[in-house]
């Protein structure tokens, strides 16, 4: 399956590149700072949360800045990819109703854009790690794993969301509410040490929490996550990816009628 997709991507490479370029340009159109915003906006969020939670709530956990930044970094990537991915089909109806192109091309181009954005933010994150006196070790190389899995997870969710959005335009509202729920349930700015085992199980069911925690374990605790964690990340990613792929395959010829 991946070979076939790669072959089709090759054939549509020029279109794909132009779509990625377009997604970049549209993202920053009419903003003065342009790309600067993808660095600045997580930093501002970090700044606000840091102030709120250290000054007002007095959470003085060690490496709290890194802890917080890891959460913001991952959640921001997740949020941008899925929100942008949702409109991938409807927003490109003008293209796929005119020429015969694989429809996942649009979602993929959007995700390339968010991935590159994420990479930029990741660099800033690493700089912050240095400032926060985090010990760098070979374990940092393991960061590739959660990033690849999260990208796959984002793509899969994007497939599902963009397909549903074709039929129900309410999805934007439903998704932003869901996203808020996920955000508060992802321990972006609080620690989960004091929760009961039952509560921890609930956290574990939230995919985003797992991706964030995985990265924190490597960066802050400087340990290799357990095999069970590795498996869980892959499970979430492949599960949504398979469901999404199935939806696209099933509805491939239906989309045309609804856009």
């Amino acid at each position: 399956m991946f070979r076939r997709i790669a072959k089709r991507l090759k054939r549509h490479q020029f279109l794909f590149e132009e779509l990625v370029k377009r997604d970049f340009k549209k993202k920053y159109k009419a903003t003065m700072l342009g790309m600067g915003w993808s660095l600045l906006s997580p930093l501002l969020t970090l700044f606000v949360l840091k102030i709120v939670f250290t000054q007002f709530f007095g959470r003085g956990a060690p490496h709290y800045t890194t802890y917080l930044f890891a959460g913001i970094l991952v959640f921001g990537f997740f949020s941008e990819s899925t929100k942008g991915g949702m409109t991938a089909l409807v927003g490109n109806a003008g293209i796929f109703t005119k020429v015969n192109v694989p429809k996942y091309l649009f979602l993929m181009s959007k995700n390339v854009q968010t991935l590159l954005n994420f990479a930029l933010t990741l660099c800033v994150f690493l700089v912050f790690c240095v400032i926060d006196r985090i010990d760098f070790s070979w374990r940092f190389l393991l960061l590739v794993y959660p990033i690849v899995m999260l990208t796959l997870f984002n793509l899969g969710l994007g497939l599902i969301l963009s397909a549903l959005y074709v039929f129900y335009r309410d999805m934007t509202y439903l998704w932003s509410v869901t996203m808020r729920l996920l955000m508060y349930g992802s321990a972006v700015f609080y620690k989960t040490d004091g929760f009961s085992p039952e509560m921890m199980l609930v956290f574990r069911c939230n995919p985003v929490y797992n991706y964030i925690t995985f990265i924190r374990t490597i960066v802050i605790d400087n340990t290799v996550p357990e095999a069970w964690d590795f498996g869980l990340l892959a499970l979430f990613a492949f599960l949504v990816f398979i469901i999404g792929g199935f939806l696209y395959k099933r509805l491939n010829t239906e989309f045309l009628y609804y856009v």
Partner: protein
Amino acid sequence: MSDTPKHPVVAKDVCIRYKRGDFKQIGLKEYIMKRLTGNYKVEDFWADWNVSFSLDPGDMLGIIGTNGAGKSTLLKAVAGIMKPTKGFVRVHGNVSALLELGSGFDKDLTVKENTYLRGAMLGYTRAYMNEVYREIVDFAELKEFENYAFRQLSSGMKSRLAFAIASRVRPDVLILDEVLSVGDGRFRKKSEKKMREILDSGATTILVSHSLEQVGNLCNKVLWLHKGRQVDFTDDVKGICSRYRDFCEGNISIG
């Protein structure tokens, strides 16, 4: 084109089911309300029913028929955008479908960016676009507007650009949905000349047109559709055109 097979396009018993109804762009609330009150109507109907034809290399097929005859749907099936519900369409060689070209540009992108995007959509390569970009902009007479956002252009300018890009296609099978010429006066002349060049290039062409005169002049085969059914497929262009004219004037009826 020596390796072109005998029939570049074959359509056999093509049936395409289309959906129509008030399901489009409704929200969840409306959907549930309509479901509850039993007002939810999605009508399946056959846009095309048992359409069969085959073309030889270099053929120029005109598809005629009144509105809702299933012409555009059939074109989309040949272009591979839609799949026949039953039957099949087999196409040899590369296909270019020029459908509703005026729309589908991105209003936030500049003329240059849109040109490249459209070129990519039509299957050109980047090298080719770099090579012909200047000519395209010159042909569309948009030299001074290259870096303007698309929203700032007039609709005439947009269709000129659309035509200028599309007129570069040199496919084995060409599909046209009434895009034979655009613009006014001088530009119309220019675009007609360009169109002739494409049509004379030897590509097998399928063309939907409401102008019988155009069909009579250009085509060597005609397919007449009526409410999705195939009334006739023939190379007797004169005969079918006069029958169609009689039908439109209400002199004859078809079953």
